């Protein structure tokens, strides 16, 4: 469960990333965050995994109340989330297997369990034959699939995806969306910031549109923009 109540994030007197932002996302939902560049999508995402601290307001992620969370507990919050980035953020000197396993070793999972789970995930994202390759030996789509596998390695309740298809062609984007749909079907909440209107329009889910740091549209099964509806 994700809850934002009157959240304000001020970077300076003039720059405000979140302005009285209030929203609630229930467990198991698939939500798109849309909006123009600079609207506050990234701020919203970064506030969720406490990369940014809110200036005021209340944020609750599962059982963590972020305005009260100590810096030393932030890693534990992040272990409850799976995060996927536009630029994949894979560890360059670790192999595909090691990249996924890293997230599991961090929480001190037994090596046998790691081996079993990572093998299972590699099958799921279709990269079983690339387990010993390094990230720079993979295509963008393959790297993003590794990043997804890493994000869900510890079976988080929430997956946050920041423009996961931003660097990918339409066919690869479809592959990624299918994997995310599959993860969502198992009960995982997906919050996905995106600029990809085709995806939003094709894979219909709740759409939250942000502008000026505020939610200006909250529509179940919505499309990328309201322009079509306005016409």
């Amino acid at each position: 469960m994700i809850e934002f109540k009157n959240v304000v994030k001020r970077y300076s007197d003039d720059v405000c990333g979140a302005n009285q932002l209030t929203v609630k996302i229930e467990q198991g939902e698939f939500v798109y965050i849309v909006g123009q560049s600079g609207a506050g999508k990234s701020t919203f995402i970064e506030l969720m995994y406490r990369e940014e601290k809110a200036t005021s307001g209340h944020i609750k992620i599962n059982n963590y109340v972020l305005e009260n969370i100590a810096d030393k507990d932030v890693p534990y919050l992040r272990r409850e989330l799976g995060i996927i980035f536009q630029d994949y953020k894979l560890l360059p000197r670790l192999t595909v297997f090691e990249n996924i396993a890293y997230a599991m070793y961090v929480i001190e999972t037994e090596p046998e369990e790691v081996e079993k789970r990572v093998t299972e995930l590699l099958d799921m994202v279709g990269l079983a034959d690339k387990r010993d390759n390094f990230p720079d030996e993979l295509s963008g789509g393959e790297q993003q699939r590794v990043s997804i596998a890493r994000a869900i390695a510890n079976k988080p309740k929430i997956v946050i995806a920041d423009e996961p298809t931003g660097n990918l062609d339409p066919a690869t984007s479809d592959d990624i969306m299918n994997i995310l749909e599959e993860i969502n079907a198992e009960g995982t909440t997906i919050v996905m910031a995106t600029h990809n209107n085709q995806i939003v329009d094709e894979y219909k889910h709740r759409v939250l549109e942000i502008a000026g740091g505020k939610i200006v549209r909250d529509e179940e099964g919505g499309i990328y923009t309201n322009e079509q509806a306005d016409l």
Partner: protein
Amino acid sequence: MNKQTFKRHLVDSLTSLRRNTWMSVAAVGAVTVTLLLVGFLLSVLMNVNKVASDIENNVQVRVIIDRGTKEKGIKQIKKSLEKIDGVESIKFSSRKQELHNVVGVYGSEFKLISGDQNPLYDVYVVDAKNPDKTIEVAKKAKKIKNVYDAKYGGTSAKKLFKLASSIQHWGIFISVLLLFVAVFLIENTIKITIMSRQNEIEIMRLVGATNSYIRWPFILEGAWTGLLGTIIPIFLTDFGYNIVYRVMSNSLKGSGYQLVAPHVLLFQIDLLLIVIGIGIGALGAGVSMRRFLKI
């Protein structure tokens, strides 16, 4: 931290060292150069210390007997010497023996002055009970009949001691300075390797690694870097010192002074280099990590 996690950190640190080949080579190189200087300076300093303390602890007084003194007179001197408070032992060394010593130290050219041409004196070598008594024993011995002179190293020892003590002070100063340079150099090299991996640290944080989980492999990697950096300095110091010791031992034969034996000195220096290498490597990594681990 459980055993399993520590084992993982150990493996990760070695893997990372291997996969960041060029950065590792650069860091190990910096450590090597610095520790080579530290090793050299330490060997010099330890020997200066040894000679200084040899001089300080010198209890020997050489009682020179007037030329032409009869055997009875020489025996009388011994009796008088035995009466002096603070005398530990008395040993007679004839002119011939004295010349033999000189030949041993300065070479066979001095054999030319053997026989009647020998300009040296018969000598009693007196050991005082402790260094404080040396001067007193010498003074009293000088007053004995048929004694030409009584030397305890005299002014030359004083001069040498002054020199040794100034080398000692400067040596300590330079060592401390060099140690700072070593810390600075090693830490900076490791800092650069860590800075080049800032993104990795960022990613580790994002997947929920705690600061200590991120820090440990880097600290261990720093320690490995330090340890690898000690190999060449240890080898060169050991090899070089053994040669210097052999050469210098011949020159110092009979002088009463000696360099520190290789097995004593090298064990201490090698151990110190390893401790410095590992310590500064690990510490440098730990300190460099701090600013990348702020949440």
